[in-house]
């Protein structure tokens, strides 16, 4: 297969140049020193950027970001799994196509409009509060529906759920119908089949979906800024704040730490779940 190295070369170079090189540069620059006379950095080794993460509660933003990403990814999986199951096992071809198209609806508009529309929907005078009051479920509009962690999570799940659904759809064909029939013939109930056959076989897809959502939430900012409470933060917002005052080593250090955490997550996940199996055909 003499063409394989050639076909690999171009994307490999693209990944190295477009992806890895900037990240390595950021990692190196995170150890340089800010120079107030030039407003830039100079190549004098310093840990000031990393020590800065310990100040002003910045490390709590890192932890809170990871917690938000974890919760959003789990919620997305919980919602996406039955959907992927239904599309693969229950829906006919036509219905499956309609459902898959429906998953892409959030992408029909920009992320800004998406978040803004939730702001309108969840607000004091929005349709959800109007309905709650009209049906007598509450006496007054619920303030916590908007500008709260709840609102942020609604925005994040609504935006990123499709990224969990599609890897799951890819993983579902690994469950061969003959195995399910055999399990049923042997007397296994629905939940036992799910627990012992379907879930283990779709684990790589679950992890891939989790990873997609997790990474995207870590890099998000719009949902937090538009739907969160006063001064709500996430890593991207913090990096933006720091860049505005030209504290580049700190911004680079935060980015490097996040990068290391995400890289670690990918490696651990791959070791545990074997992401490559996602593309490896049916059950063995």
């Amino acid at each position: 297969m003499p063409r394989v190295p050639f076909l690999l070369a171009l994307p490999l170079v693209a990944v190295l140049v477009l992806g890895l090189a900037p990240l390595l540069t950021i990692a190196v620059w995170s150890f340089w020193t800010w120079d107030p006379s030039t407003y830039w950095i100079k190549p004098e080794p310093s840990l000031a950027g990393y020590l800065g993460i310990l100040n002003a509660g910045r490390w709590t933003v890192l932890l809170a970001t990871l917690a938000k990403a974890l919760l959003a990814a789990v919620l997305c999986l919980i919602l996406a799994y039955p959907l992927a199951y239904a599309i693969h096992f229950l829906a006919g071809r036509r219905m499956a196509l309609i459902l898959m198209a429906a998953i892409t609806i959030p992408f029909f508009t920009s992320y800004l409009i998406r978040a803004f529309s939730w702001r309108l929907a969840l607000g004091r005078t929005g349709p959800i509060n109007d309905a709650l009051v009209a049906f007598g479920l509450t006496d007054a509009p619920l303030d916590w529906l908007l500008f709260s962690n709840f609102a942020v999570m609604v925005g994040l799940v609504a935006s990123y759920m499709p990224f969990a659904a599609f890897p799951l759809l890819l993983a579902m064909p690994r469950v061969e119908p003959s195995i399910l029939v055999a399990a049923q013939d042997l007397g296994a109930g629905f939940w036992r089949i799910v627990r012992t056959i379907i879930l283990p076989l779709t684990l790589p897809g679950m992890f891939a979906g989790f990873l997609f959502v997790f990474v995207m939430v870590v890099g998000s900012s719009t949902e937090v800024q538009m739907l969160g409470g006063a001064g709500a933060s996430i890593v991207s917002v913090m990096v933006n704040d720091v860049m505005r005052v030209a504290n580049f080593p700190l911004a680079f250090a935060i980015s490097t730490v996040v990068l290391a955490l995400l890289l670690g997550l990918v490696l651990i996940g791959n070791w545990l779940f074997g992401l490559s199996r996602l593309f490896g055909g049916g059950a063995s």
Partner: protein
Amino acid sequence: MTRQRTLNPLASNMQRRQMLKMMGASGLGLTAGLPFAGPAVAQDKAIGFWASATLDIGANWSRLTDATGITPTFTDNGNDMGPVVARLAAGNANDLFDVGGFQGGAERELFKQGQIVPWDLTKIPNFEKLWPWVKDMAHLKADDGAQLGIPSVVNADSIIYRTDKLGVVDSYGVIFDPKLRGRVAMEDAWINSTAFAAIYLKGAENQPIGDPGNLTVDELGLVMEFLIKHKKDGQFRTFWNGWEQGVQLIADEEVDAMTGWEPIVYEGIKRGLEVAYAAPAEGYLGWGNNTVLLKGAIDRGLTDTAHEFANWMLDGYYGCDIATNRGYIVPSETTAGYAAANPADFDAADIMAKADHVAAKFNGKVFWQNVRPDNFQLYEEWWQKLRNA
């Protein structure tokens, strides 16, 4: 929100410079020998204007070309002075642009770094027609009195509030009033929100604060502890960003009062809301966008052209255009004068009303917004503490 006069202004500017460099290498004799030397000279009168998007007048820059022969290339600088200063100090901004239109406060620092050069006011006769106090603004002058920035537009901000809920508001105290817990907001920007809080603490609570736009370490601590306490008490519904969010907060009754920009009041009134802009007893927060001469213009021999450009901006047409299309005021007597002399082009009454309104604000107490206070990195650190409180 970038509006540009060419498809790729940076490329256009670079090509222009490369062209001029090539022409310079061949010497003046070559151009003198050409039959159409005139248009070549006119092409030399090109200016790269790197400014806040609000200063762009789009297709109407042709009026500058008609009047002076100068062809401007407008590039939006994003209006955030952090990246602007960094790009001047460590990037290629001075290679690309000749004149800047910057949010006020960083002029003296940029001058110290050698990134901008003082204006020669003998080449800007319209400077004398600026409102008197504008000419004397200290933060736009070097230690020796040289003029570092020329105000392009000025205004002063305070509080947007609902008159149907609150009656008449004349103090920032409304933002910190426990009776309005969860019904007020401030901007998600330390440049503005720390200054508003400092103006309140200085004016209403007699706290020892000198310049609310440039707080010392102790003053900053005092102001930020105050904001953190109120945030922990649940005082703020949110911190807002951008025009749409600001309008939505008021329009959808999320808040009854918030610090912010006066055009939000105009938008609210258009939508039938009972909203007004406060004239706070403690004073307004004044701000300006200023025209600065970038060092690169001098290096490229564009000093006179840049001065001619700056003079035209104060000549009247630009002020009328900006007032009509953006609602901002060039603080010069030429604005109203040009409108009155050209009734077919502009609504003179409207422009004069806007100018009088802004002038009236500045007749009272005003503290200046400063995008680069001395302790600007400490401001950011405190802002993180506020976020995380």
